């Protein structure tokens, strides 16, 4: 959620909320029905969306192993789930802490940037077909944050410890 809304209790004992603070909350609450709709669409049509992406990706990357493609698709599913959550609560930092902190180091090791770039293009096409412009505008801050972070990092060699 917007950090300012999350902080409403912090000053509770000193003063009442200023009109602009109250307005911020009202705006978020007013946007809630649309956010909920977008969230539900993403949830209910997740498989349809990502399956379409998977089919196109597989066709476009015949040289890639299934294992690699599957790993990338799994990360994309996770990304979409966290972006959906962050759309709902209006907090992009959630994507950073919950998704990127875990997935970026692994994506770096497995070096899947080229496939990811392809995948995101396909995914974004699907999403823009399915969501309204308004809904997309709620989703895109976190979605671009996640995609840009993963595409901008350089790769590192894989570690080779064994059990």
């Amino acid at each position: 959620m917007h950090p300012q809304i999350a902080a409403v209790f912090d000053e509770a004992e000193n003063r009442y909320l200023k009109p602009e603070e109250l307005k911020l909350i009202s705006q978020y609450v007013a946007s809630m029905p649309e956010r909920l709709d977008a969230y539900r669409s993403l949830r209910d049509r997740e498989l349809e969306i990502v399956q379409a992406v998977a089919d196109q990706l597989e066709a476009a990357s015949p040289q890639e192993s299934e294992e690699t493609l599957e790993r990338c698709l799994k990360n994309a599913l996770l990304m979409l789930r966290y972006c959906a959550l962050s759309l709902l609560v209006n907090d992009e930092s959630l994507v950073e802490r919950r998704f990127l902190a875990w997935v970026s180091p692994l994506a770096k090791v497995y070096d899947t940037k080229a496939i990811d770039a392809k995948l995101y293009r396909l995914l974004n096409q699907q999403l823009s077909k399915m969501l309204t412009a308004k809904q997309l505008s709620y989703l895109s801050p976190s979605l671009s944050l996640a995609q840009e972070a993963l595409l901008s990092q350089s790769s590192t060699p894989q570690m080779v410890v064994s059990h």
Partner: protein
Amino acid sequence: MLSQLERLTREIDGRYASDAELTFAIDYVRSFNLRVQTYQRLQELETTLVQQTYTKMRSIDPSVFSHGGDDLSAKWKRDTLRVMRYVAVAVLMDDTETFRERLLLWFQTIMRAFGAQRSCNLTYQVLQEVVKQSLTAPQANLVCPLLELSRRTLGTLT
């Protein structure tokens, strides 16, 4: 609402929330206008409500504002205002849990340290009566449960 959103983000890890898990948000949207009205009303009436409570308490028990010769009126007003303001935000945000965690549990130990339970018990009982007279019934229905919780938490002898 804040604590519910927080719980939601904690509990849905790598999956989607079900409709049942989202009900609270829909309920909140529906009740929001009433919450804002109530919040603003409490802000307007803050001084009056506290003053009315003070007068009423004095008439019920004149000794309640003095302790060993000290006049506790000013201290009482500060404490009561503090609780009232948290109550107002808790009404606005529909968040009893945060109210409890951020204020009541701590304040309970402080009120006990000063032996103020009897005064608290009376305060939040009278305040409920005063609120019911000054606010509409739906507004008072949002405020009074929080005042009752305050009475039970702060006003109970161990």
